């Protein structure tokens, strides 16, 4: 149920009854490396939960698909209560297991974006995203977080576990019952209970006639359609953490925030050709991680 207040503000309340389980592994066809196995799905919690959500959205962007000015702020509060019938495996000491499976939690998510036009040809955009556990029992695996890859910290691979403290997926010590084994179960589930991410991006127009790349691409594109080509420079900083008694740089008290020196950061550049963006990103806090290339069909945020 959604209510609107003016042209820029709306609020939504919802209730859901969900049954959770681990998705079955599949083997879809891929253009490249089709004979290789896909990444295994992590085993998540199985059970049934009732979820109540309350969200608010404030949107003053001049254009929803290609904003050059305005705010886009969303906030969501979620209360969940249910029973976990089968706990998914985690790293050691990540959470407390309730023998009855009963679980009640609440969490909050905030995503704040500001789009700023700094000239006729350029814009500087900012984004802050944060959220996580608020109170109650430990978050089920389905409700935890991780950072890394194209949507958050593109200088890091998806579910990449670096040596030392794992700031991205919150994998702790070795998995229960696996002395000498991996730090995270198969499939590398997201295990962080809270996260914070900051992103900044500059986009500048290059001009519609960039190497003629916009002139003819596919059957359905017409000559001259689309926006001018843009170059992009960006930086991201973020990390995840667990909530509880302080344990090194991985777990913090409910009222604590990790020091900024523990955050992971990356920088990158890219080229946007109408809807297609091509990017390169490199971690600056872990210099030995390789350069990453990625493509997106939508703006980064």
């Amino acid at each position, binding site marked *: 149920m959604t209510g609107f207040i003016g042209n820029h503000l709306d609020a939504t309340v919802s209730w859901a009854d969900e049954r959770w389980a681990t998705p079955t592994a599949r083997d879809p066809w891929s253009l490249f490396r089709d004979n290789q196995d896909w990444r295994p799905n992590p085993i998540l919690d199985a059970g049934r939960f009732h979820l109540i959500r309350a969200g608010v959205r404030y949107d003053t962007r*001049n254009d929803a698909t290609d904003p050059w*000015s305005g705010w886009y702020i969303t906030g969501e509060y979620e209360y969940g209560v249910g029973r976990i019938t089968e706990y998914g495996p985690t790293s050691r000491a990540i959470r407390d297991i309730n023998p009855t499976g009963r679980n009640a939690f609440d969490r909050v998510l905030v995503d704040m974006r500001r789009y*700023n036009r700094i000239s006729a040809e350029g814009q*500087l955009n900012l984004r802050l995203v944060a959220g996580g556990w608020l109170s109650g029992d430990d978050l089920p695996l389905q409700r935890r977080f991780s950072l890394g890859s194209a949507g958050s910290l593109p200088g890091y691979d998806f579910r990449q576990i670096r040596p030392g403290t794992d700031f991205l997926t919150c994998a702790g010590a070795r998995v229960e019952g696996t002395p000498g084994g991996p730090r995270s179960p198969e499939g590398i589930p997201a295990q962080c209970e809270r996260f914070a991410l900051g992103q900044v991006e500059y986009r500048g127009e290059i001009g519609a006639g960039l190497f003629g790349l916009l002139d003819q691409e596919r*059957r359905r594109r*017409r000559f*001259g359609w689309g926006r*001018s080509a843009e170059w992009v420079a960006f930086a991201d900083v973020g990390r995840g953490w667990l909530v509880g008694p302080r344990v090194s740089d991985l777990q913090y008290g409910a009222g604590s925030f990790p020091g900024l020196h523990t955050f992971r950061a990356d920088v990158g550049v890219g080229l946007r050709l109408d809807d297609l963006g091509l990017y390169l990103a490199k971690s600056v806090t872990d210099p030995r991680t390789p350069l990453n290339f990625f493509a997106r069909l939508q703006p980064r945020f």
Partner: protein
Amino acid sequence: MRRAVLFAVLLAAEPLPAQGQPRLEITLPAPAALTKEGPSIRALDVISDPETQSLLQSGFPARLHFRVELWSGGRVFDALRSRTEWDVFVYYDALGKKYRVVRVERDGEAIMSAGQFGSFADMIQEVERPMRVPLRASGERSRQYFIGVLDVESLSLTDLDEVERWLRGELQPAVRGDGNPGTALGRGIRRMLVRLLGAERRNLQARSRTFVVP
């Protein structure tokens, strides 16, 4: 083997037929008239292609959504000063064998028929006629510019029904995208089918030169 087949399919694709380049033109008034009258905007070769003609004659109307914004430079960030939007609907009356052009402004408050045309060329001439935009530059001596955005999409038959009912005053302007008389899933399926026929949503942008009011 699969890659070879895919490569062969791409090679066998028909080349795009020659046609005018779609473009959006913004023309500023004379410097002395910048605060008295707005720029003129003109969309050229946006629906003049044979595919769009075929879609129109098959009963898929076209919607041209114009948006023009006035921006001014600030100390750090530029500011959006004002904006205006309007729609131009084009559809083919199969019974009367005429193309109808309707212009909708101010969120549906003003609906004007721009005429009926017996030939495709005459309709194109009307659609491509320059339009004076009711946005005037600010009298402040700041750096300013206009930005024009044009979205062109083909509508489904149900969208056309909504357009006609709206023009008769029976519905709120759901076709602007704000309302939802049908279910979101139904509208999404219809739009997907329209796009499978080659009638996707297309976007053009143009910007005037930067000016300072004398």
